[in-house]
């Protein structure tokens, strides 16, 4: 057993003994073999001293046990690092931000407290995965849909707290926004309930978000101010029907009106599904299913003339390429929109969207998918991307940089995910800046980077903004990984110079990203630190998570 930094072996042994007294010896992990499981499976630092490791892990089964662990940790000054299921892969996994922390593994807290298909919500513990809740809903025949991220193996609570996103209607895709009420164990072991949960006899914990007084829920997301042990989530009523329609545009400049159309129909509420953009002419993505197919099977096989034209394009454009697309009826841009609701509403929404797009984009063409009614069946028959109808699946797992279609075999990946303006100008500017950086900055040259070339189209998870997600493969060569880390840091810096901050980032970059949100001499971070010192004076809860360090580690551990 290697104790956390600054903790004596005797103190650590005493703490471990107390943890065992709380959860039972079987659920305290101290062997090297067990602790290996809490390393970041995708870490670019593997093999180096910087790779984050846990000194132990403890798996409580109830909120009372979490309280017991926190109190014991407070007595002994042991740093803890709470994970729900630890599946935040590509963003750090289950490895602690502060090496040597004791991981509090909440997977055993896997109760589905309640699912209502009348008021359309669920209350769950952190160990409940999307698969767990989906199966529960199916087994009970409940008429609600989940909103699942990729690939749906993680925790609802953990994903929401990390600001994860999904693939159904906009009201549910932002998982933190879709939550309603939480229960939190604070650093002193006290239990707090937010929203209506603060009122002992309330029956509306998962129905009315605001409760009374300041809304504090956000303090417990992307932070280390407490351990969330229950959360409510709003669910979508199972719709009668759903369909996907595609808007196709043939000219490069149509990108502007296509994005304007996207914003208008989404913000108006008539196109609630994920607006997925693509470019068949540039051989770039589009709907998620096409994207996944590309990861499995490799990039589309284009004829030589087409491929040469793409290679000669600048910022995704050349007049010859545009002409080639028009002559061969290959759309420059596509926008996939998914609709949910009664058949009549779905049909009316699609009809209205076509009218709006046709008025804005000369020559726009449209392709309507089949109106479907059974999500499970549609997913199994691959008629639709399963996550777009709330069905988790493992097939998606090869997403990113690990699939057979990728020429660079990798053992993991990391996502660089800045928020950019939701406009064509935003897309073009991000492409210009990052492409130029990749061509001219030494640290970025010759590194495989997923989704940058020939042209990157943004991810549509959030309303009102785009995520410009680029992927880096993690390989077995430490030198390549070292270069990837340096490149990632450079991209963060470049993004910040343009006002593009990450919405989420792997653990090892969280300090840098937090520092990029630096308005008024890092007033936001200083506020976080004030909160941290007040709520967790001994600094035992997840030190360093999202760049928030307790006072005693602020100068040394960052």
């Amino acid at each position, binding site marked *: 057993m290697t104790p956390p930094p600054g903790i004596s072996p005797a103190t650590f042994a005493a703490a471990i003994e107390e943890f065992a007294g709380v959860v039972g010896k079987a659920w305290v992990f101290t062997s090297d073999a067990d602790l290996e499981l809490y390393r970041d499976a995708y870490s670019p630092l593997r093999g180096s001293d910087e790779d984050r490791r846990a000194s132990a892990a403890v798996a409580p089964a109830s909120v009372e046990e979490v309280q017991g662990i926190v109190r014991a940790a407070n007595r002994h000054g042991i740093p803890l690092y709470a994970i729900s299921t630890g599946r935040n892969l590509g963003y750090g996994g289950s490895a602690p931000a502060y090496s040597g922390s004791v991981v509090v593994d909440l997977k055993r807290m896997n109760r589905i407290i309640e699912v209502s298909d009348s008021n359309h919500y669920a209350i769950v513990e952190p160990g409940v*995965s999307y698969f767990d809740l989906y199966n529960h809903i199916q087994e009970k025949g409940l008429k609600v849909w989940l909103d699942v991220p990729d690939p749906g193996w993680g925790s609802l609570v953990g994903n929401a707290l990390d600001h994860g996103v999904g693939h159904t209607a906009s009201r549910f895709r932002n998982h933190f926004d879709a939550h309603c009420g939480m229960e939190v164990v604070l650093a002193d072991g006290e239990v707090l309930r937010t929203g209506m949960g603060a009122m002992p006899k309330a029956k509306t914990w998962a129905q009315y978000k605001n409760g009374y007084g300041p809304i504090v829920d956000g303090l417990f997301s992307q932070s280390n101010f407490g351990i969330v042990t229950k959360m409510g989530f709003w669910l979508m009523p199972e719709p009668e029907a759903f369909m996907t329609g595609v808007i196709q545009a043939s000219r490069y400049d149509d990108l502007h009106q296509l994005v304007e159309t996207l914003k208008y129909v989404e913000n108006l509420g008539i196109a609630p599904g994920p607006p997925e953009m693509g470019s068949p002419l540039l051989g770039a993505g589009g709907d998620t299913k096409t994207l996944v197919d590309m990861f499995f099977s490799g990039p589309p096989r284009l004829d030589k003339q087409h491929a040469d034209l793409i290679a000669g394009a600048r910022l995704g454009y050349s007049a010859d390429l545009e002409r080639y697309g028009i002559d061969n009826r290959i759309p420059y841009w596509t926008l996939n929109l998914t609709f949910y609701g009664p058949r009549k509403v779905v049909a009316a929404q699609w009809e209205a969207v076509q009218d709006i797009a046709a008025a804005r984009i000369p020559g726009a063409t449209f392709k309507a998918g089949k109106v479907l009614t059974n999500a499970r069946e549609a997913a199994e028959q691959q008629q639709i991307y399963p996550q777009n109808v709330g069905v988790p699946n493992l097939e998606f797992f090869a997403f990113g940089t690990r699939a*057979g279609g990728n020429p660079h*075999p990798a053992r993991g990946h990391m996502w660089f995910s800045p928020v950019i303006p939701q406009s064509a100008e935003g897309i073009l500017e991000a492409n210009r800046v990052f492409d130029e950086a990749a061509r001219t900055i030494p640290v970025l040259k010759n590194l495989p980077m997923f989704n940058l070339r020939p042209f990157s189209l943004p991810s549509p998870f959030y309303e009102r903004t785009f995520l410009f997600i680029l992927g880096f493969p993690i390989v077995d060569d430490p030198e390549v990984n070292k270069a990837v880390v340096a490149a990632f840091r450079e991209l963060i810096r470049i993004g910040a110079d343009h006002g593009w901050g990450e919405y989420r980032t792997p653990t090892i970059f969280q300090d840098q990203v937090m520092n990029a949100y630096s308005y008024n001499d890092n007033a936001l971070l200083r506020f976080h630190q004030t909160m941290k010192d007040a709520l967790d004076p001994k600094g035992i809860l997840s030190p360093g998570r999202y760049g928030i360090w307790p006072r005693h580690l602020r100068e040394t551990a960052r």
Partner: protein
Amino acid sequence: MDGEWLRLDRRGVLAGGTMLSLAAACPALAAVGTPAERTIRYVVFDSRFRESREFARHPALAHAERLDVAAGLTRLWQDRLVPHWRDGTGIVAGLTTRPVWDGLSQQALHQFRRPAKLALHSVDPATGLAAHRTGAAARGSLADCAGADWPARMALAVTACAASPSRADCLAGLAPAASARFRGEGFHLATWMIG
């Protein structure tokens, strides 16, 4: 609000003896489980790959139930492996693509199981010959398994790793004197075990 608990009995299983360690080098797989725990219960394969088919149908693995990824990874996991990892004893072994390994190993972790990657194979699709790497990634112990019959040798190695009470050097037979660089060409498969 009583809620519904999802069963998770990993530590109950572990109480009977340690299973596999994560460390990919086989000596670290040395386990002292009961015979039932050392039995390979399921062999996961992907019928779209000749190498995977050959691995799965090797006589050494004949006692195990074969599960084909090509029939649906999610269904395979949910219908067969989840119940097994919830209550059962015995090892799940496979020779599949790396993404399948990644997916299943991560799901196994959700039930407090221990996955172990035994070897990676870079396969030349034209000849079926492969470069192999055993051992943890950072240590990079390189081995060359000459000949296109390497899937059969992996089946034997898996069996040896699972069954041998000592488990000493159970992959040694895979590494003739000559070693080859892991070339990163062709397609990539992984041999693995989850206890």
